[in-house]
């Protein structure tokens, strides 16, 4: 490394050290909440026997996509069970869901806020760029320093990495709602709350669901990397295969990740694109709940 003229890195170190010295209590309580939340989700996923969880996914695939995809789902999961990666897969699934849910809980409201204000959009845009393009495992260092090792820094680093698409696509979806549909809402006397829940969000749903899909995909890829700070799951096996140069283990665990990714991707994607055809979908249920506000 050549000699530094400007030492940005040491400033960042100072900032993190300062946070650690003065606000460790705050980080501990955030860590406690995240830890409790993700353990809850994981224990729910662990509760049913493997065949039941598989059956649920196969059922979802059958309902949302079709028989061929359902068969693919069944074969994939059986393959994972037979190669002995089932438990790690469920852990990874739990981490992915936890990180995704936190990302959406933060990202969707932020996206809605951005859609209503040019200033907010201008401010958050470079921040989102930063979050998305900074090499993912760089987050792991401060996360591990602030939250210790284990699943919590993993989830927090994952949330930072996976949240931007939820924000962006919520913002975009709301902004792209047909101008006359917005005017229709206003002309029939919607107040701003009704306009959001009855007009903007339902009409932005396909775009928001595309954001959810993207967030899940990015979360899945990040929870694998997060095994470096001890998040656990399939990432541990991937990491171990690198450390031991074990190609076989790398292939098996890597394939489990790929299969899980495909299944999650297709199922979540279907909620975005088939929204209008399938009345009984989760989305219309959610938006109906929101509309009842």
């Amino acid at each position, binding site marked *: 490394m050549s000699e530094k003229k400007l030492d940005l890195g040491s400033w960042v170190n100072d900032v993190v050290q300062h946070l650690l010295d003065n606000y460790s209590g705050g980080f501990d309580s955030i860590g406690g909440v995240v830890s409790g939340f993700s353990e809850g989700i994981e224990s729910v996923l662990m509760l049913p026997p493997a065949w039941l969880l598989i059956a649920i996914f196969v059922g979802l695939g059958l309902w949302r996509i079709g028989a061929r995809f359902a068969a693919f789902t069944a074969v994939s999961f059986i393959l994972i069970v037979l190669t002995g990666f089932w438990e790690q897969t469920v852990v990874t699934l739990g981490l992915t869901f936890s990180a995704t849910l936190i990302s959406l809980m933060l990202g969707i409201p932020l996206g809605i806020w951005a859609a209503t204000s040019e200033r907010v959009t201008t401010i958050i845009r470079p921040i989102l760029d930063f979050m998305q393009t900074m090499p993912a495992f760089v987050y792991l260092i401060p996360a591990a320093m602030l939250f210790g090792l284990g699943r919590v820094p993993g989830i927090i680093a994952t949330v930072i990495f996976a949240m931007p698409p939820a924000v962006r696509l919520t913002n975009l979806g709301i902004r792209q709602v*047909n101008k006359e*549909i917005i005017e229709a809402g206003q002309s029939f006397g919607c107040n701003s709350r009704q306009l959001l829940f009855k007009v903007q969000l339902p009409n932005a749903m396909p775009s928001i669901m595309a954001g959810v899909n993207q967030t899940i995909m990015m979360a899945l890829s990040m929870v694998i990397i997060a095994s470096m700070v001890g998040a656990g799951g399939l990432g541990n096996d991937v990491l171990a295969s690198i450390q031991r140069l074990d190609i076989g283990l790398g292939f098996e665990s890597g394939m489990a990740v790929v299969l899980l990714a495909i299944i999650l991707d297709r199922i979540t994607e279907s909620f975005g694109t088939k929204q209008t055809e399938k009345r009984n979908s989760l989305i219309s249920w959610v938006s109906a709940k929101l509309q009842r506000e």
Partner: protein
Amino acid sequence: MQSGKIVVENLYKVFGAQPQEAIDLLKQGWSKDKILAEKGAVIGVSDVSFSVEEGEIFVLMGLSGSGKSTLIRLINRLVEPSAGNVYIDGQNVAKLPKKQLIDLRRRDMSMVFQSFALMPSRTVLDNAAFGLEVAGKSRKEREKRAMEVLTQVGLDTFAHKFPHELSGGMQQRVGLARALAVDPSMIIMDEAFSALDPLKRREMQDVLLELQKTHRRTIIFVSHDIEEAMRIGTRIGIMEGGKLIQVGTPQELVDNPANDYVRNFFDTVDTNRYLTAGQLKADSVPLFVHNGKAPDAHTVSQALQALDKHYAFIVDENHRFYGSISLEKIALLVEGGQTRGLDHAVLKQINPVPEDMPLDQVIGRLVDNEGPIPVVDGKGIYCGAISKGRLLTRMHGE
């Protein structure tokens, strides 16, 4: 202040940083283009005043960019006015606090859009019930009312379909049902039928006119289709460059266009179709008065021969139409040695046509009658005649 259901007074809309400055410059006589070039402000609507009567269909016409869509959005304040007043039932919408504006929109006004603007994730029924839902009506109540209006527009059997399963014309019926559901006293229709093909457009115009027969609402209708404007409009307002340049009944605009811009609109239409009996009539038939004593056949015959006319009309002392007779008929009477007066026994009874009878019906009457037909005014007073020759001359252009 003028009276009327909707009264618009000196309304301006400027898109730009300093609307008041632009308005002052407009008042000093600057042109729209100059203000755009030097101040960067776009004049949407410039000093528009007009009023719309209760129950009237007021059509706003103009080329695209003439400000008609902006103007109607100033009326329900989807666009904030830069200056001026909009009174609806005497209440100034332009100055209304937000909450009262929302109340007014929920209660008494609705809008129909060019692109239909239906919510794709809602069923036809839920779309029609939208305004009622926003107003906080219970599900049962709003669905009952939505079903009623869907029945009115002939879509009750499609209530549980989604908008994308319907054709364009049917979708706009849903748009219309949604607007009717809140039972507003006024509806704003923005190029509501422009996206439909000509047959469907006509059909929707008929639906609208039919609805107006049973329940008159005040309608402001934006259109760029002159045929449509003449067909449904009680009055038409013509816009150009943000200004309202002429307002009048279709006939007034045809007869006295304010300038070439207005005249050009009517160039493309066969304005003859909108001629009425009152405009076709002439004093072409000699008139004789039956003042208790019938005119003498011999006198009438000589007069007609002198004038080279074939028909005469007889009116009573109050100038009401009494009967018609042809020269041939008189000749027969005279030859037969009957020299008695021309009264009921010999006169041909024709039902006079009212002045406002449209051309197509007048033609029908002329076909049924051998001779000219009499025209009477609203009080039944004879005011002229229409003959086949006269009709052709008038249609060809005098």
